[in-house]
């Protein structure tokens, strides 16, 4: 293709956007609205996912050593636990620390036990992958000098199940929303192209090749997608940054951290732009193809 023709296609695609003002407005609005929806939804889903990750990572195994075990025996147990495959991190807490902790939680009445501490030393174990918690706990339970192994048996499995379902639903909703967006945007574009059917007919009549007809329309799809993506990208950037500084700054939330805007916003904006341009080009391509065939 001659460079003059490429320039002509680019020029024509812009001209046609301004000539078909209302149609352009309709298509750009469709892109804007659906992308905003997708954007908001992705922010919510990704952060819920992050929350789920946090919850999962908080799951730990508490290993209580035999109250009568000697220091060496506890050290031996600690070594064994550390070497267990799948173990990421082990924290040692002496029986004294354990009692202090209990007194803090349940009140001074328990201070009586300072005379004769019935508790054993404890090890807090985190798994590499939270899903392996149960199997690791079962393995540790077989080691000598373990008095008790707790990891919220039953509850943890349920929690993981709920989180998994939640994630799948979220993913399903995002995919469904993407398809809705594709349908909505490509339909709007299709309408604008149907209105310009005469134009395509005339192009064919005077001997334009298929690609010559198609390229300006596809370029228009690119611009429609890009223009439509500007507002959602800007709004998402402004609002998410504000939300992040409010959440992390003022609330100083300990329970849950929002995803860091860098690189999350960059990824989100890139995704929105890609989706918009892809749908724009795809919508144009499919609509023109129909007329070229007829």
């Amino acid at each position: 293709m001659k460079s003059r023709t490429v320039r002509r296609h680019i020029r024509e695609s812009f001209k046609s956007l301004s000539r078909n003002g209302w149609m352009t407005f309709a298509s750009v609005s469709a892109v804007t609205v659906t992308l905003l929806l997708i954007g908001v939804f992705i922010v919510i889903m990704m952060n819920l996912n992050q929350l789920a990750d946090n919850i999962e990572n908080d799951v730990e195994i508490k290993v209580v050593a035999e109250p009568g075990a000697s220091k060496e025996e506890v050290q031996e147990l600690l070594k064994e636990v550390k070497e267990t495959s799948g173990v990421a991190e082990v924290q040692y807490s002496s029986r004294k620390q354990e009692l202090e902790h209990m007194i803090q939680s349940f009140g001074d009445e328990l201070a009586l036990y300072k005379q004769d501490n019935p508790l054993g030393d404890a090890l807090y174990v985190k798994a590499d992958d939270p899903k392996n918690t149960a199997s690791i706990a079962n393995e540790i339970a077989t080691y000598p000098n373990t008095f008790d192994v707790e990891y919220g048996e039953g509850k943890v499995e349920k929690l993981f199940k709920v989180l998994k379902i939640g994630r799948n639903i979220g993913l399903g909703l995002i995919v469904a929303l993407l398809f809705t967006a594709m349908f909505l945007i490509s339909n709007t574009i299709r309408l604008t192209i149907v209105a310009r059917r005469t134009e395509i007919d005339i192009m064919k009549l005077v001997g334009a090749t298929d690609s010559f007809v198609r390229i300006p329309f596809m370029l228009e799809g690119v611009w429609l997608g890009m223009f439509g993506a500007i507002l959602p990208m800007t709004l998402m950037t402004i609002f998410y940054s504000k939300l992040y500084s409010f959440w992390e700054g003022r609330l100083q939330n300990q329970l849950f951290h929002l995803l860091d805007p860098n690189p999350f916003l960059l990824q989100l904006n890139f995704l929105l732009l890609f989706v918009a341009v892809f749908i724009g080009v795809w919508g144009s391509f499919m609509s023109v193809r129909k007329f070229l065939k007829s």
Partner: protein
Amino acid sequence: MIVMKNVYKKYPNGVVASNGIHVEIEKGEFVYVVGPSGAGKSTFIKMMYREEVPTSGLIYFNNTELTKMQRKDVPYLRRQIGVVFQDFKLLPKLTVYENIAYALEVIEESPSVIRQKVTEVLKLVGLTKKTRMFPNELSGGEQQRVSIARSIVNQPKLVIADEPTGNLDPETSWEIMKIFERINARGTTIIMATHNKDIVDNQPHRVIQIEGGLITRDENEGEYSNEI
């Protein structure tokens, strides 16, 4: 220039628009195609620029067989044929000049050639003073002149016109006919489907009459039949 051999065309809805047509049209001829509505005139014409493909039979345009032509080659056939319609088919958002230049842009002509050729045809159809106007600012006759200018700007060997005077008053129709005569005088073949008895009778050329998908009359310097 055009040869049709035993051309048969049946549409999916069962209508037979061409029922074994044989015809030969020489270079430089001026041919009227007449016949009642629904007789198969439009199909006859559309098959020449491959807007329709016959169900069976052969069609040659300058020795090229059209029925076997691949889709990708159709644009190159169309560049040798100009088409004019009853409803003009102009792009409403382009000026007179742009509408005509459009036919050359799509075949990737250089801007200087486009300028020269468009100016030339604007003179031929007498629209040099209205180049910057839009179709809705023109009369029906003027719009048809733009449409004719577009069809000939690429210097095609054949111009096909489907009821070009159908929407025009008698006086304007005569002006349009004069332009077609001028184009024909330059050696371009003209095939024109028409219902205009006045024109056919007063400006005699070859007449092909189609009825029920068949050629029922083919006369040099024929007249419009009173039975249509």
